[in-house]
């Protein structure tokens, strides 16, 4: 970080931001403008800042972020679809001095893995759950997910999600906050620089709580999916602000009483 740069007019500049050291040099496979990679960057920045690279263990899900272990230069374990929380529980119980986090999408955490997630939070397992919510199954071609908004067009709901047929979008973050095992539950986003700064603070807090053995920390990140939503990355930001945030309001859902 202490690299210097000398401009032509003699002004000396110092490096204030660079690619996190804990990220590998592999370029991301994500589509242009995807929120997944921003969350990867933030997670690895926090790992760098807290200097916990050698004692962090991540659990990768099934979904777009299935190759998370290619990019994060930490110990990682791949879990079966939806079972990341269960795998993380096992890792944390065997190695209680390590910091364990799961990284899951909405198809993984909110659909097939609902039972594992709810029960992990209910048991108050001392792990961090990072939940990326973009309201769609990105990897398989933009199918409807439990978090898809009413009226949202996906490849399996071509006339928009019909709540009489498919029910209402699942607010799993609010559900998790009801459980006594949850210690810190928050909903963040990565659509602009300030949101990224807030997410970084939330992740730092969650890792610190885990070091103090407080209980389950749950961070939802409302993200975009330019390919699945069939929009340009810049259009997805507008869609997030106008359509997603009214239904998924940002902010802390459950904060520890101090």
């Amino acid at each position, binding site marked *: 970080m202490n690299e210097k*740069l000398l*401009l032509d007019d003699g*002004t*000396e*500049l*110092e*490096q*204030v*931001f*660079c*690619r*996190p050291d804990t*990220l590998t040099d592999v*370029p*991301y496979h*994500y*589509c*242009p*403008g*995807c*929120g*997944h*990679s*921003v969350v990867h*960057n933030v997670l690895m920045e926090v790992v760098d800042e807290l200097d916990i690279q050698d004692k962090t263990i991540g659990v990768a899900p099934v979904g777009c972020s299935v190759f998370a272990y290619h990019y994060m230069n930490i110990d990682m374990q791949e879990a079966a679809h939806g079972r990341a929380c269960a795998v993380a529980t096992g890792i944390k119980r065997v190695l209680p001095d390590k910091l364990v986090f799961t990284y899951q999408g909405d198809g993984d955490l909110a659909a097939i893995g609902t039972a594992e997630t709810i029960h992990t939070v209910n048991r108050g397992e001392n792990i961090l759950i990072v939940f990326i919510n973009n309201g769609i199954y990105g990897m398989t071609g933009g199918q409807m997910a439990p978090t898809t908004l009413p009226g949202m067009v996906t490849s399996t709901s071509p006339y928009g999600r019909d709540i009489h047929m498919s029910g209402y979008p699942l607010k799993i973050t609010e559900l998790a906050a009801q459980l006594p095992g949850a210690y810190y539950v928050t909903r963040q986003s*990565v659509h*602009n*620089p300030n949101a*990224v*700064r807030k997410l970084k603070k939330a992740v730092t807090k969650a890792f610190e709580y885990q070091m103090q053995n407080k209980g389950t920390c749950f961070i939802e990140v409302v993200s975009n999916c*330019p390919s699945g939503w069939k929009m*340009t*990355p*810049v259009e997805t*930001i507008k869609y997030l602000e106008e359509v997603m945030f009214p239904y998924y309001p940002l902010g802390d859902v459950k904060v520890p009483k101090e």
Partner: protein
Amino acid sequence: MIKGTVKIDAKICKGCELCIVACPQNALALSPNFNDKGYRYVELIYDACTGCVNCALVCPEAAITVYRQAKSSKKSQLKSE
């Protein structure tokens, strides 16, 4: 005004334009050229960068390195003037 600059790794840039929207100085733009993967990459078009780090925070590819004038060097520059 604090001076800064960015270095963008054109090899891994995918031209998603999120940094262009995030830049308060409007100093970034898509290049007319393409990189090896066929994306139009982003480049600094004029020298208005203040090193605010906004572009690097939203960059999904972590392709942006930001440099900024140190506060101490700014002070010494003012004194010498």
